[in-house]
């Protein structure tokens, strides 16, 4: 097509950006509203009496009735939702029935643990998964490919909680290679001043290298396990993206130019495969954040997953709503971010953005 065929009117650049931003904002808002409604409704049909969760089994009726009203359970459903919505919009997620603290405080306390775990895991998954996928693609059909495939399949197929227990047994109890459950040994707990809540970061910034080492030896096993699972996914996707890219004409062009093979693989093809890979990695990151529920149980990791499970089982609906919103927000945020990265990596999209 020659340069001027699309001579039709194009709307200006600025309104287009505005249009896009508005659209994204509307999408996000809608998604959130949906999340709120669904979680709220679930919270109301759970066959658990939230009053009991607050007052326990033995309280007399008078206490029961008072708490029932305190929790606003006497009002009609839509009114409860409306009140909740208003509060959320003003940034108040309410108090947890169980911990008696503001949900925001609770989440600020538990979330960094999960974030740290998931981040280390995704780093492990990416650093291993991408090269493995590339390698498998380059060696398609050969032994290396099969090895990577089997490794990946094992990662897909084994129940994580089982692997976690076995891992603890082997690497902690028998071999003493890693530290046990929990985030840090008590001995170091108070040598780190918690600022970000990410203990690795906090200890490193404060120069507490011994504590850093301890935190590391605690996180390495659960993170490796989670990382293994994302590695399985990432390497599989990398392989298929790379196969796709390596079959493209531009790869032949590069060969014709005399570009060495390593450069074709790692610069030309991978650079193109990176575009969809970003989304895959972002997605597995988000999945790790939520998928750590099981790992957290096994490793006594005081994170969001445990908080949420516990809140759900006790019908602590404010806590459930708050955490779900946070996780939803992370999903949406990661999606937006991967879109953004997508457009940074892919000049074809960048132009339009």
């Amino acid at each position, binding site marked *: *097509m020659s340069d001027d065929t699309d*001579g*039709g009117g*194009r*709307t200006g650049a600025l309104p*287009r950006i505005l249009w896009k931003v508005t659209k994204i904002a509307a999408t996000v808002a809608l998604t959130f509203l949906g999340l709120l409604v669904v979680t709220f409704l679930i919270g109301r049909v759970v066959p658990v009496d939230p009053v009991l969760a607050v007052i326990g089994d033995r309280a007399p009726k008078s206490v029961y009735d008072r708490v029932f009203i305190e929790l606003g359970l006497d009002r009609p459903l839509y009114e409860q939702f409306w009140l909740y919505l208003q509060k959320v919009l003003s940034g108040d997620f309410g108090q947890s029935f169980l911990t008696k603290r503001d949900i925001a405080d609770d989440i600020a306390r538990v979330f960094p643990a999960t974030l740290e775990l998931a981040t280390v895991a995704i780093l492990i998954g990416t650093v291993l998964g991408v090269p493995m996928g590339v390698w498998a693609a380059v060696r398609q059909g050969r032994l290396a490919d099969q090895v990577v495939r089997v490794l990946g399949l094992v990662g897909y197929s084994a129940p994580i909680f089982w692997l976690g227990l076995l891992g603890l047994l082997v690497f902690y109890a028998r071999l003493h290679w890693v530290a046990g459950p929990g985030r840090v040994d008590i001995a170091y707990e108070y040598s780190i001043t918690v600022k970000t809540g990410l203990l690795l970061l906090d200890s490193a910034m404060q120069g507490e290298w011994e504590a850093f080492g301890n935190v590391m030896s605690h996180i390495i096993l659960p993170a490796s396990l989670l990382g293994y699972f994302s590695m399985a996914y990432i390497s599989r996707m990398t392989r298929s993206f790379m196969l796709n890219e390596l079959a493209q004409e531009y790869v032949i062009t590069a060969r014709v130019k005399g570009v060495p093979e390593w450069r074709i693989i790692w610069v030309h093809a991978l650079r193109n495969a990176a575009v969809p890979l970003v989304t895959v990695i972002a997605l597995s990151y988000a999945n790790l954040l939520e998928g750590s529920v099981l790992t957290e149980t096994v490793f006594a990791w005081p994170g969001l997953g445990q908080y949420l499970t516990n809140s759900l089982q006790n019908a602590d609906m404010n806590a459930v709503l708050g955490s779900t919103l946070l996780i939803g927000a992370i999903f949406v945020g990661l999606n937006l971010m991967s879109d953004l990265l997508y457009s940074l990596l892919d000049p074809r999209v960048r132009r*339009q953005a």
Partner: protein
Amino acid sequence: MITVDGLEVTFRRGGDTVRAVRGVSFEVMRGESFGIVGESGSGKSTVLRAFCGLAPTSAGSVAMGGQGLQTPRSAAFFRQVQMVFQDPYASLHPRHTVDKVLSEPLAIHGFDRREERIEQALAEVGLGAGFRFRYPHQLSGGQRQRVAIARALILEPQVLLLDEPTSALDASIQAEVLNLLDRLRAERGLTYLMVSHDLAVVSHMCERLIVMQHGRAVEELSRAALAAHRAETDYTRKLLAASEGYSPAPG
């Protein structure tokens, strides 16, 4: 038979608008074969698609047999007008056998004697009964295009829209398909509206043609004028020169 008057087609995509067709008018007589030539992206296909309701008309009018066409097109319209697409590799459903491809339109329009009609349609396009239960991947490009033509003809339409029916085919197979189309028109008295970027093909097939550039019809020519290289616009002359093959000096 066909009247297109001031046709405009505008596509909106995201924040973009593309004016693909900008005020094209022409008329095709009953039994005539009319051609549209032009380069890639000039809007040829869009004219055809707008005519049969597959693309949105933003201005102008299209009519058939003197009657304006309403959107969406009626079932009766589809019995009169059928289309053959450019790429035989993309115009057959990969999971449908030839038999299924041909029987479906019959089922939709409630035709009787289906078995007979299918066999006859296959025979007409020069495919034996042995092709009836094949899948597209078991057919060559030329054979596929024959199936596509059979599919278009099985509803016994009066007008056939041909969107570059041979441009994806080798020269030798192109000749066979063009001959087939020629024969069918003669036998059935069909009206053709044919799009191509190949001047030679259009001049072989059509009595009259228009030349399109950037969504506009820049020139209308008869076959005789084309054969005599009597083009009026620069653009058409360039097309003509290019179709001669390579000439070292800038012409």
